[in-house]
Structure formats: structure tokens, C-alpha cells
């Protein structure tokens, strides 16, 4: 019913749009040049005002009314039986609600039945009240807007102000969400450090990671929360991934921008970018099921023992995943190097290779650097591939053929494991916060570099 009201408000607003537009034309007897604002703006203002008022009243009455009914009923229950505990009162209320809607209640005593009656009465009142009041609000706002229409009513300025506010509100939602996430990360991190008595160095420099094995009465063992193996594993896999992605991505970008014929470029570039569209979970099982056994078997053939989950397999596949980011971004910046620079170099008798190496790549270097930094921040934050292919044991090793674990894998393990959420959340959020700081710094660095580059040519 409330959904229906919502659509009714929208329909009314649309009607106000049509009426407002034609009324604006009528006010000046068809000579629209006399209007301060075009007829459409009069219509839009009527639409916006009526829709906003109607929906705001609907939301306000809908939520506030429900809250008011709940407090009213709880106080009614408590005044009937003053010695009842608040939890019992809430149980009575939920039973009454069940009775009112014909459901099953734990008990049905006179108090519950009486409250159930009140629930039904107040509920209906609230419901219809909301519907009627919001529709009336829509009508009043719309009619007010219609009444204001005259040749010098500034409908354009007003409607543009309203639209600007709406845009601002949507932007604020994104910003506030980010702020909220960061704040929750910070608070959980503080909680975690409190839990280990502010021995921050044990987290940052300790080498044993087994946070849940030393829990006693919700208290973590500071000696078992050393995150160095995770940082080392993340670093190793990132390095392997970049060793794959940077040369392949950069060289393919050079080929696409300076050597490929337009026809080859036309299908090769979308194909490369298709790599970016493959879900990482697919890369993950490709790494775990195809590449890791292949590496192990090849290793055995030359007499090496390689774990079935290895940093190498995860790193290579992650590198393949990052190729399109590097190649696509580098291709863009290489293309942005003006043709006049290439001509200048050819005009001096330079070959294509000399031109690319000595003129084009140095000119595009800042952009390439920022592409690589973005690639690194992707690699650091990547989860699915490492969960499947890198292993779970927090193993501090420099050998890429052994299983290692990363920050993201441990977050997954902590949150999806069966430990109580309040205990597991501390280390998980702290790791997340560390990760956030690292990728944030990378992105800031990348953007700085890009900005510097823009200044060069514009």
C-alpha cells in the first residue's frame, strides 16, 4: 500500500508537470517570450516541489510513526504491569503483533489481546494517516507551485537550485559512505590495538601469525599477531605479478600504439581489454586447477619439489589479470604523445625504435608510472586468486615455490571462519586498514604523477 502511495505521488507530480507547463503558456496567452522561464521549467518546478514534499512526508510519517507507536505501546504495557522487565515487554509486544496479524504467539493472555487490539487500531490509523497526509502534502505543494506561475516567476532559477541540491545529496551519499567505512576501520583497529595492550610493534614486526590460536577470554595473544609473513607474502606475489604484467603490458601497448596496423589495433585492443572483464574467481580457479599443477609437474621433471599451492602460480595469474590495466593505460598515454614529437624525431633521421625508446617512452613515462602504480594497488588488494592459489598458512619464506599467504587471504579466513565475530573482527579490520592505507598511498602517488604529466602538454 505504501509502495502504491509512492507511485501515486509520482503520478500526481507528473500531472502537475503537464498542468504547470500548459498553465504557464495560458498565463501569457500563448506568447511564451513574455515568460521569465520557459514553460518546461514551470512544469519541472511543480513536479519537483510536489514529488519532494510528498515523498518526504511519506518517509517521515512512515518511519517516525512506527517508532512513536512502538514507544507508546511499550509504555502502555509497562504501565499495565510496572514490574515487567523491558525485554519481557518487547516479547509481549511482538506476541501482540503476531496476534494482530493472525500469527502464532507464545501466549495469549488478556494483556496481550488488549495490546493486539491497540496494535491493529494504531497500525491502521498510522497506515491510512501516512497515505492521506502524504497525498495531501503532494497536492498542496503542487497547487502552491501552480498558483505561483506568472510571467516573472523565476521557475528556472528555483528548479535549477533544487536539482543542484539533489545532485549534491547524491554526491554526499558516496562521500559519507567512504567516511563511514574509514571510521569503522579506524575504530576497530583501535579496539584491536587496545586488545593487545598497544603493542603495535608486535603487529607490525612480529613474525608469527596465528591470531585465533591464543585467544583467552576474548583477549588475543600479542605474540601471535605478527603480520610480517602476510606483508611478505603480499609483497612477493605483487612483485611476481608486476614482473609478468609490466613487460607484457608495456610492450603490447608499444606494439598497439606504434606498430600495429589500424585493423589489428581495432580487434586486438578490445580483446586485451576483455581480459579485464573476466571475473577474478575465474582467474583463481585457472591458477589453482591449471597453472599450479603444471608448475608442480614441470618442477618435478627437473627435480624440484614445489608446493601445489605456490606464490609463483598465484603471482603469474595475477600478473595476467593486471596486463590489460597496464597495457590499456599505457597505450592511452603513448597515444597522447603528440605526433609532432615523433615527426621531429623521424625528421632528424631517427629510426622507429630510436624514436620510441628515446622520445615517446620518456615523454609517456609519468603516465606509465601511474599505470604501474595502479596495477600494484590492484595486485595488493586482489583476493580471489590468492585465496584459491596461494595457500593459507602464514609461512615466512623467500622461496616463491612455496605456499605463502597474503593480507587479503587472512581477512577472508578470519571473517568466514567460525570464530566469534567480535574476536575475529579485530585482526581482520586492522589488516583491512593497513591494506587501505597502502592502496590509498599508491593511488595518491599515481594521481600526483598523472597531474604532473598533464601539465606538460596542455
Amino acid at each position: 500500500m505504501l509502495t502504491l502511495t509512492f507511485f501515486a505521488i509520482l503520478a500526481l507530480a507528473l500531472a502537475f508537470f503537464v498542468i504547470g507547463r500548459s498553465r504557464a503558456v495560458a498565463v501569457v496567452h500563448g506568447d511564451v517570450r513574455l515568460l521569465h522561464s520557459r514553460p518546461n521549467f514551470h512544469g519541472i518546478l511543480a513536479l519537483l516541489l510536489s514529488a519532494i514534499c510528498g515523498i518526504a512526508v511519506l518517509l517521515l510519517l512512515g518511519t517516525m510513526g512506527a517508532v512513536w507507536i512502538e514507544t507508546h505501546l511499550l509504555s502502555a504495557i509497562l504501565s499495565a504491569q510496572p514490574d515487567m522487565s523491558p525485554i519481557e515487554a518487547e516479547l509481549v509486544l511482538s506476541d501482540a503483533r503476531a496476534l494482530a496479524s493472525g500469527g502464532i504467539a507464545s501466549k495469549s493472555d488478556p494483556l496481550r489481546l488488549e495490546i493486539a487490539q491497540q496494535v491493529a487500531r494504531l497500525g491502521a490509523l498510522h497506515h491510512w494517516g501516512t497515505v492521506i497526509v502524504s497525498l495531501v502534502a503532494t497536492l498542496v505543494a503542487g497547487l502552491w507551485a501552480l498558483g505561483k506561475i506568472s510571467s516573472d516567476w523565476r521557475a528556472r532559477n528555483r528548479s535549477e537550485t533544487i536539482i543542484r541540491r539533489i545532485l549534491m545529496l547524491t554526491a554526499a551519499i558516496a562521500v559519507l559512505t567512504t567516511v563511514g567505512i574509514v571510521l569503522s576501520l579506524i575504530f576497530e583497529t583501535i579496539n584491536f590495538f587496545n586488545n593487545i595492550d598497544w603493542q603495535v610493534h608486535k603487529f607490525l614486526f612480529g613474525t608469527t601469525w596465528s591470531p585465533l590460536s591464543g585467544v583467552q577470554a576474548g583477549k588475543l595473544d600479542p605474540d601471535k599477531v605478527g603480520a610480517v609473513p602476510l606483508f611478505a607474502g603480499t609483497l612477493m606475489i605483487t612483485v611476481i605479478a608486476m614482473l609478468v604484467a609490466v613487460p607484457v603490458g608495456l610492450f603490447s601497448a608499444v606494439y598497439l600504439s606504434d606498430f600495429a596496423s589500424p585493423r589489428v589495433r581495432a580487434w586486438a585492443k578490445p580483446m586485451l581489454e576483455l581480459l579485464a572483464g573476466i571475473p577474478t574467481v575465474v582467474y583463481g580457479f585457472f591458477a589453482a586447477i591449471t597453472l599450479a599443477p603444471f608448475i608442480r609437474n614441470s618442477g618435478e621433471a627437473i627435480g624440484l619439489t614445489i608446493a601445489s599451492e605456490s606464490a609463483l602460480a598465484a603471482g603469474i595469474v595475477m600478473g595476467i589479470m593486471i596486463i590489460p590495466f597496464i597495457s590499456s593505460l599505457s597505450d592511452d598515454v603513448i597515444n597522447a604523445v603528440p605526433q609532432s614529437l615523433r615527426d621531429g624525431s623521424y625528421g632528424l633521421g631517427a629510426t622507429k625504435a630510436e624514436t620510441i625508446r628515446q622520445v615517446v617512452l620518456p615523454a609517456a613515462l609519468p603516465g606509465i608510472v601511474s599505470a604501474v602504480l595502479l596495477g600494484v594497488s590492484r595486485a595488493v588488494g586482489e583476493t580471489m586468486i590468492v585465496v584459491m592459489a596461494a595457500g593459507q598458512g602464514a609461512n615466512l619464506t623467500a622461496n616463491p615455490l612455496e605456499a605463502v599467504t597474503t593480507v587479503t587471504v587472512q581477512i577472508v579466513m578470519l571473517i568466514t571462519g567460525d570464530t566469534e565475530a567480535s574476536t575475529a573482527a579485530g585482526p581482520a579490520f586492522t589488516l583491512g586498514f593497513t591494506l587501505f592505507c597502502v592502496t590509498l598511498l599508491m593511488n595518491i602517488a599515481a594521481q600526483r604523477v598523472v597531474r604532473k604529466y598533464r601539465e606538460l602538454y596542455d
Partner: protein
Amino acid sequence: MLDTTQTLLTERTMSKDIKISAKGVDVFYGDTHAIKNVDLEIENKAVTAFIGPSGCGKSTFLRCINRMNDTIDICRVTGDILLEGQDIYAKSVDPVQLRARVGMVFQKPNPFPKSIYDNVAYGPTIHGLAKNKAELDEIVEQSLRRAAIWDEVKDRLHQPGTGLSGGQQQRLCIGRAIATAPEVLLMDEPCSALDPIATAQVEELIDDLRQNYTVVIVTHSMQQAARVSQKTAFFHLGNVVEYGDTNKIFTNPEDSRTESYITGRIG
């Protein structure tokens, strides 16, 4: 038969001190016939100006002389262009080596995003013209002196070339072209992006360059052609309508179209 014509042609060009000789040159951009059967002989150690309305093919023809059109896929050149009697479109000629002999300066100053020194040292380094750092320093200084910009930049050779003013950048680009020790310098509207003072400086420089180089300049400014060149070719719709001494072209043109262009009635 072919050999004798070749020898005759060579002797003739040498005797009249002709640096570049074009015979029946046609250029096509895709389906567009941009240059139509052009014959032209360019004198050694003189400034030759190409004038004509926009789109008449003068820049296209200029770019044929150092095979810059090779970098454009849809462009096709037929006919012969001889540099000192040698066909530059022959299979045996490497465009890269040719461009070291026939340097080019472009419409818009295009210094590389490197230091002033590195901009000039770029050509000599890739062609191996300097045996050591001292020789390279010498080439850079000589080139910048000849480009009449040495005094302005000698104290900041290691700052970026992109930080210079437009006129300085264009003289830097001329210095950069001179540094590879070319025989011919092609200039494609070198002053069109410059203010009058910078233009005057570059024009003065072109006049000096005549002592050591064969200069071919494309220009939209008739006054400029009259000021800097000894020979002028008037291009119109892909044809060379008239070619001769600059004085004669500007004072007593033979073709009515040349006269109309010079007096501002077509263009």
C-alpha cells in the same frame, strides 16, 4: 639508354648546381590526387620558397623531399626526386639515412621533453657524429650558435627545452636539425606559430643558413617569401604554376593565377 639519360640528367644538374631535381612527381592520399606531375629543380645553397593557397600541396611536396610521407600509410608517391643525381625513392636508399642529409623543421615548435642540450645532442648521438663528450659539446654549441640562440640558452643548457618561449623553441628546433649536419633543410611554415619579433629572428637566421645549406621553405606569408628566398615556386591545386627567381615572380609574374594570388585575389 636509361643509363645515358641518367648520366645526362646528373651532368645537367651538376652543371647548373642543382641540389634537388623532381621529375613528374605525383602524390596520392588515398583517392585524392594531391600533387600532379610536378617538375622542379632546387638550387644548391639558396633559399627556395613554396607559396600557394591552403591545400595546394606545397607542404605535401616538401614532405616528399625527405620521405616524411612514408610515415603516412595511405600516402603514395610516384615519379623521381633526385638528390645530387641520386633517386631518393630508389630501393637502395634508406629513408632514415636520407633524413639525416635532409633535415626538417616543422610548423609548430616541437622540442622533445628533454633538456635543451639533449634536444640538440639527440641527432648527433643516434648518428654517431661525436666520438666523445667533448666533441658532442662542440657540436651542440656550434649548432646553437648557428641557430642564433646560444647566447640565450648557454647558461641553462640542462633545463627542459619545453620551458623556452615559442620563438626560442623554434630556433632550438632549427639548431636541432642543423646538429645532424644536413645538406638540405626543409622548413614547413616555420614562423606560423610565432609572434612578429620571433619571426624576424627566424627569418634573419634563414638568411644566414643559406651560406651553408640548401633551404626549402613553405610559407603562407608572401612578404616572408619575398624577404628570405631567391627562388619561388607557386603551387595551385597540386600543380606548380610558376617557378623562377623570387624578384621576377613578385614583380612580373607570367601566369595570371600567380598574379591573382600575389595581389590577393585568390587564396
